[in-house]
């Protein structure tokens, strides 16, 4: 069947009501009568036709709960139970080719509530969709693909949350589209949105810290403009690679017409990839990002003007069969390697390397009764150096978690 036919059929299916016995009532919807008065000749149209209407609003989401027992340099933090997050997902098809999608996240037991995503998407062509609302900036792969149950690890990657900073969403507009041809797919996204503020270099962390900007509640209303864009290329047998960029001025360079400072920019580049090895079925995914910030010369070198980091996950399914009552249960062995350098470069005075880097290794075993639910046990071993590269502080421990779509 050709594609044209397929679309045609789908169209028929969605727009025609066909009255048949024993039809699943979920597919049918009564047409609303908009006039009570009709002439006799209208009676033929006035029957209680049944129509396949727009899909109802769909409601879903996911949640995550963890237990962890971690210690740093031999000092244990004891048992910690964490209901990390609950995300609600609401979507509806407003009309043909117009959709509403949203994701609302409750973190730390509801102390933090955030609209991660809320957009109206208008499909003009498959290659040209208009999106407006609170958008997720397409930087790297994790920011947009952050749903807990998709990953084998209880924690989000450090580089993606502490450096980049996932989940980053802003008010904005943009275009996106995709093009398929045989085994290849090409996709792009580009947005103009609100952006970062000077808190990225003036914050309680006392270092260059992009997530600080997310504290600003006003960022959905005003502030600097951020441009972000991503292109991705996917091949059904080789995998996917993505290249993304976001950048813009981050400081308040003028107020009421008075120039306070020169315009200072923030630029971020990222590459991401994922692939599944043939035969072995090993799934490998990772991303790496570079951050460049124009830090004023009056700041000490404690505030890095360059950061870089990333992660790579290797996931090996070792068992795929019926386990208990689950027909397609999977057990995975995985490992995540992570690295972040919060402050790339050398000290001006001594020419010694500026420390502040971190690496972490996290082996994991996870059990998926179905694709949508994962129970995972991780061991983390990480190593963080301070700015002067003193002997690193070591963190180690176990984390057990459940994450599931609902």
């Amino acid at each position: 069947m050709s594609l044209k036919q397929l679309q045609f059929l789908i169209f028929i299916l969605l727009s025609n009501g066909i009255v048949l016995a024993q039809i699943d009532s979920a597919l049918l919807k009564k047409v609303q009568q908009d006039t009570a008065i009709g002439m006799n000749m209208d009676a033929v149209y006035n029957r209680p036709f049944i129509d396949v209407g727009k899909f109802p609003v769909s409601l879903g989401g996911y949640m995550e709960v963890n237990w962890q027992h971690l210690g740093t340099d031999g000092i244990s933090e004891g048992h910690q139970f964490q209901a990390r997050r609950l995300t609600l997902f609401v979507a509806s098809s407003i009309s043909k080719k117009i959709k509403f999608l949203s994701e609302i996240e409750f973190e730390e037991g509801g102390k933090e509530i955030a609209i991660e995503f809320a957009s109206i998407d208008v499909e003009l062509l498959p290659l040209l969709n208009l999106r407006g609302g609170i958008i997720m900036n397409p930087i790297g792969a994790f920011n947009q693909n952050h749903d807990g149950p998709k990953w084998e690890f209880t924690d989000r990657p450090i580089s993606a949350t502490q450096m980049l900073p996932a989940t980053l969403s802003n008010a904005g507009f943009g275009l996106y589209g995709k093009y398929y041809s045989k085994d290849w797919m090409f996709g792009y996204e580009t947005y103009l949105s609100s952006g970062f503020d000077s808190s990225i270099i003036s914050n309680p962390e006392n270092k260059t810290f992009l997530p600080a900007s997310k504290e600003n509640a006003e960022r959905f209303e005003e502030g600097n403009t951020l441009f972000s864009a991503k292109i991705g290329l996917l091949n059904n047998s080789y995998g996917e690679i993505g290249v993304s960029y976001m950048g813009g001025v981050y400081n308040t360079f003028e107020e009421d017409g008075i120039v306070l400072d020169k315009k200072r920019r923030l630029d971020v580049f990222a590459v991401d990839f994922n692939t599944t090895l043939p035969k072995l079925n090993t799934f490998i995914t990772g991303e790496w990002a570079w951050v460049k910030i124009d830090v004023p010369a009056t700041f000490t070198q404690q505030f890095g003007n360059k950061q870089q980091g990333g992660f790579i996950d290797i996931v090996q399914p070792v068992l795929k069969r019926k386990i208990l009552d689950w027909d397609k249960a999977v057990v995975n062995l995985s490992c995540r390697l992570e690295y972040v350098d919060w402050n790339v470069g050398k000290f001006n005075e001594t020419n010694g390397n500026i420390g502040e880097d971190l690496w972490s290794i996290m082996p994991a075993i996870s059990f998926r009764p179905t694709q949508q639910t994962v129970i995972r046990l991780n061991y983390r071993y990480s190593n963080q150096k301070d700015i002067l590269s003193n002997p690193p502080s070591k963190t180690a421990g176990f984390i057990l978690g459940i994450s599931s779509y609902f």
Partner: protein
Amino acid sequence: MALLMRCTHQGTELQVFGDKLQCPAHGSKFANNGDVTNGPASSGLRTFPIVIDNQQLKVSLK
């Protein structure tokens, strides 16, 4: 065969790209015969048989 363009994961309406269908919500992908090619959805799309009867195309919702 006709497909119901409703994601089997959480019910979002699918988008058509070439001969593939993709869910804008969490990225599930389906082939043009309704099979899942990419999670988190775990089952195929609902399909309906069709018949061509005297130049008319009929979709059976049974």
